[in-house]
């Protein structure tokens, strides 16, 4: 097992705390790893070598595509906590980016919230989990970013 995957599993287990069962940790870890995979959308087949990264298709009918951003002083467990909560909310994580610079981290995830998901409740949960770890977490509809950057 590569060391970064092992570290990821440790961080997820740490973030989940007493709620960490082997199945749950694996589910979250797979979601993160799938999202990080170069093929783009979760569970999509790998793109043939040399081809540009495929366009991320629109969300499934009824789903809401959101961008989750977290930032703050670098603390282990923030990404794991966010992915765990998104996973618990049945969200499908499509993309994850993380950067740590001079002790500050930024995490950006793109995810589809299932039809009927309570966006306000998910945001509230993410914000409280983030706050406990010293991070500010935002959840915004992806359409805003598309409007501003993909006219």
């Amino acid at each position: 097992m590569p060391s970064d995957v092992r570290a990821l599993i440790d961080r997820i287990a740490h973030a989940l705390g007493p709620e960490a069962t082997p199945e749950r940790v694996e589910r979250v870890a797979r979601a993160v790893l799938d999202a990080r995979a170069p093929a783009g959308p979760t569970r999509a087949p790998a793109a043939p070598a040399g081809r540009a990264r495929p366009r991320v298709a629109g969300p499934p009918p009824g789903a809401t595509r959101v961008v989750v951003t977290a930032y703050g002083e670098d603390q282990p467990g923030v990404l794991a906590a966010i992915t765990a909560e998104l996973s618990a909310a049945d969200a499908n994580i499509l993309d994850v980016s993380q950067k740590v610079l001079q002790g500050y981290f930024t995490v950006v995830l793109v995810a589809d919230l299932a039809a009927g998901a309570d966006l306000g409740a998910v945001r509230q949960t993410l914000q409280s989990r983030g706050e406990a770890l010293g991070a500010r977490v935002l959840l915004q509809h992806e359409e805003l970013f598309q409007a501003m950057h993909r006219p």
Partner: protein
Amino acid sequence: MPLALTEVLETVRMTEADAFDIRTVTLGISLRGCASRDAESTRRNVVDRVRRVAEHHVAAAEEVERLYGVRIANKRVSITPAALVADGFSPADFVRLAEALDGAAAEVGVDYLAGFSALVEKGATPGDAALIEALPEALAVTQRVCASVACGSTAAGINADAVLAVARAIKGMAARTADRDSIGCAKFVAFCNAVGDNPFVAGAFHGPSEPGAALNVGISGPGVVLRAIEALGPDADFGAVTDAIKTMAFKITRAGELVGRRVAERLSERSGSPVPFGVVDISLAPTPADRDSVGDVLRAMGLADVGAPGTTAALAMLNEAVKRGGLMAARHVGGLSGAFMPVSEDQAMIDAAASGHLTLEKLEAMSAICSVGLDMVAIPGDTSPETIAGILFDEFAIGMINDKTTAVRIIPVAGKGVGEWADYGGLLGRAPVMPVSNVGNAVFARRGGRIPAPIRALTN
């Protein structure tokens, strides 16, 4: 194409650090058909219409705010100029109408209701005159009602009788709200070339050529532009500065258009009758908050302070660059769409006026090239109505000749003189009382009649 990390972070930084928000979503409501046989039933019809159309406005806007994580600072309503639907009213009837509108605005939860207005560019009906007479009392006994009077236009010239009547009304508003730093005047705008789709108060009204209802949006975002200019450093030339402003204006206008459209959709769903999206007003509205100042943008361009030689050119460039970006970003741009320079609502402007770097005359020059006018300017309480009329005439002449909107929101702060302050709090901010030339103009101001329309009005 998936979003890049830098793009996401840019948007997040705008809302988190640069005070970017949507300044207002303003629901325009036509009052046509509300006029009835007497003042009482007309008033009832007007209030019922406002309640019915605006009932879900705030809830729809809040839903969109939550969805996109972008703050909408104000939710407002504008109405058909009240004098058009209440022409038989006496001044007392108009005051009662203002109170009823204030109640309806509070009930539907909007921050302001604007359109207690008269359009008298060419002449006033008895109803228009009654509304103007009612202004001091109407604005004193209400909280949310905003009023305006259109005194001239490029097509009609300037109604000099109306200008003097409005100047006297401004003095009346100041006196009637003397205990609150003459706040009545902060809720009133006098116009030349007024527009019917302006979402910004105090001058908003739902023009006679507008549909039954329309949702217009006003953007903010001086902080976003400020960061873009700061990032360039002092060696970038004007072309580069223009490009940086244009790019940011494009992005914030796109956000404004998205938010406006979604609010209109949700409002239509909730109310069961279609409310079309109208326009994006691409004025960069400042607030007294940190990093939300148009004055700071001018300083970032290289001026030591607002009012320095070069200020007018800097403002012209800012305005032009915002338009270039904004026009490309929105399907329909409208409203005022010019730089706002409200002295009390912009910290850098407040500082410049307090230090004497920014004078009334410099503000007038700035309004000639792009800014919408003299906005939230506090002047000594003992300024005569004729002097105020002269200031209005000068601004309106600029608007009439240049075929642009000019507006005056001026506050002769009762009991206060130069060096003292008027303090309103909130978005209205605070303003130092600025000196005014007291060279006599009484004969000119009282001549009356109408300044003829300029030759450029004859375009056919």
